């Protein structure tokens, strides 16, 4: 590619940090933060969160090397395809998207609970339908949340969270009495494993690789986002657990509301409703865009039925993909609403994310052997130490989640088998059908004689 040619529109580091952190900051992260604290006996939540952040940085370094090598919006699909094979890449990508749909379900459930708490006359079910309808409508019409709005929400949210935490800690004249009391290594390991969920989605910024001048911006943005979030989460979680009884927090899907109410009363509730709404809508919207694009691209590739590639002639949007996600998302939300098992979805996402990070670490190692001469604008220093450590650590964390929550292992295992069956049995048939349709329905447009002469 000609390096002298520059794109008209490019993204800045500020927006990359906001996007990476913004996709991560959502309502369900507070539930995970409280879960982290629940594993530990003292005030050591900060330790688990900072450790989780540090571990995620090793994964971020792996993503930086992969993204520099293969700067594409196709992300993990392409990295794993090059490193392993297309079958594995597709199996994992399909399952990952399904888990992200689950996160959207959990997110909408939690947000609905928050809004129901603020406006008790309106049921959570109505809120879920309203939110899904609004975001789906925006996606079908093609309305995008502007970059500056995402920046303002993310930075505003982080500043407000820190401010609320400081107010809360000041009110009780907080002293760190047991900053290192974890209750044992196993507790700390579990807390760190769930703590990884707090950073889920930081790597979703890699698709922006096509919109920056240099891929280094993406790696810097990811690392800075994780660093800033680690501090914000650590301070906020310590403040939550110091001011509100731990049992109340752990048993609530909306711990941040309890905290805000405790320290600032109704004003705190109003602030938290607004903050959570803004954070959730951006995460929710980004998730829906990401999944609908994945579904559309998969249909274009004949991995999913071609109906999903239908586009609106009025708005230029993949309306079938968007509407299908609306239906599935609402179903997941309803299931969560009636079963109240949002934590299973949160833990599944944490485990799946760990699996993705293991594969990212392995992909760096495999690609260095497979494609040693490929251009790497960013290369992790220290040889194989960081990618190998990242793969090993996240394997242990995934194992910790699986042993603590066997249901998570069962659901993800079943999901993996189903995805593998789909990729090995259904996808070849879909591709074959498409080939037959092509052969019978259209002739080759490129002048055949010329193409054949060129050895085509």
């Amino acid at each position, binding site marked *: 590619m000609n390096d002298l*040619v520059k794109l008209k*529109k490019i993204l800045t580091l500020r927006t990359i940090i906001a996007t990476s952190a913004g996709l991560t900051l959502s309502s369900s992260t507070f539930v995970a933060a409280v879960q982290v604290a629940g594993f530990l006996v003292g005030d050591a939540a900060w330790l688990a969160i900072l450790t989780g952040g540090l571990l995620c940085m090793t994964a971020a370094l792996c993503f930086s090397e992969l993204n520099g090598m293969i700067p594409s919006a196709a992300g993990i699909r392409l990295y794993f395809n090059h490193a392993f094979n297309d079958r594995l890449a597709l199996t994992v990508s399909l399952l990952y998207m399904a888990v992200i749909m689950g996160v959207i379900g959990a997110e909408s459930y939690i947000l609905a609970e928050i809004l129901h708490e603020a406006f008790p006359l309106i049921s959570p079910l109505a809120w879920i339908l309203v939110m899904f309808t609004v975001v789906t409508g925006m996606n079908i019409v093609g309305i995008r949340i502007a970059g500056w709005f995402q920046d303002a929400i993310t930075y505003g949210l982080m500043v407000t969270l820190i401010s609320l935490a400081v107010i809360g800690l000041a009110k009780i004249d907080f002293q760190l009495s047991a900053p290192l009391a974890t209750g044992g290594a196993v507790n700390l390991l579990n807390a760190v494993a769930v703590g990884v969920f707090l950073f889920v989605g930081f790597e979703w910024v890699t698709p922006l690789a096509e*919109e920056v001048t240099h891929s280094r911006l993406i790696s810097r943005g990811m690392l800075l986002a994780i660093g800033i979030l680690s501090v914000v989460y650590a301070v906020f979680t310590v403040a939550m657990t110091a001011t509100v009884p731990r049992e109340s927090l752990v048993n609530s899907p909306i711990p941040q509301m309890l905290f805000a109410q405790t320290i600032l009363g109704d004003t705190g509730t109003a602030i938290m409703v607004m903050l959570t709404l803004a954070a959730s809508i951006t995460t929710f919207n980004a998730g829906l865009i990401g999944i609908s694009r994945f579904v559309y*691209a998969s249909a274009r590739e004949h991995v999913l039925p071609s109906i999903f590639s239908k586009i609106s002639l009025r708005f*230029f949007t993949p309306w079938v993909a968007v509407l299908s996600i609306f239906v599935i998302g609402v179903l997941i939300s309803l299931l969560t609403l009636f079963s109240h098992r949002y934590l299973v979805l949160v833990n599944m996402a944490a485990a799946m994310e760990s699996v993705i990070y293991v594969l990212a670490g392995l992909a760096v190692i495999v690609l260095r052997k497979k494609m040693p001469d490929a251009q790497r604008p960013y290369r992790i220093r220290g040889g194989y130490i960081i990618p190998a450590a990242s793969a090993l650590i996240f394997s242990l964390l995934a194992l910790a989640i699986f042993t603590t929550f066997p249901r998570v292992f069962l659901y993800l295992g079943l999901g993996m088998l189903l995805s593998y069956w789909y990729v090995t049995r259904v996808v070849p048939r879909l591709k074959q059908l498409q080939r037959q349709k092509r052969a019978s329905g259209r002739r080759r447009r490129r002048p055949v004689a010329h193409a054949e002469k060129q050895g085509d």
Partner: protein
Amino acid sequence: MATHEEIRDSLRAFQEGYNKNKKLKIMNRDWNRVVLIEANDVESKHTLILKDGELTVCEGATDNPDIIVTADSETLADLFYGDITPTEPYMNGTLIIKGSEDDIVRLDFISLMIWGE
């Protein structure tokens, strides 16, 4: 390997397909974009200009495109003749596109509407 002329002809076929589609022109009347198409195995650069719904093809590069499409000459020719969909070479890394995600998706929509699946 395709030649520069073949790529040019494929782009003209693409332009012809676009111009035949009145709906597409109406849909793109507010989408003014400059697209640089460059081959990475032969010396070949073209610029697609979409303005007020009209598509023109020019030889050579442009300074500040909105989207940069890079691939080997064979892929580019097949792609713009509609013999392959952009998704497969994009997913295997043969086709590299730089630009905003929305613009990239729009370009794929246009290709889908001209050539079908």
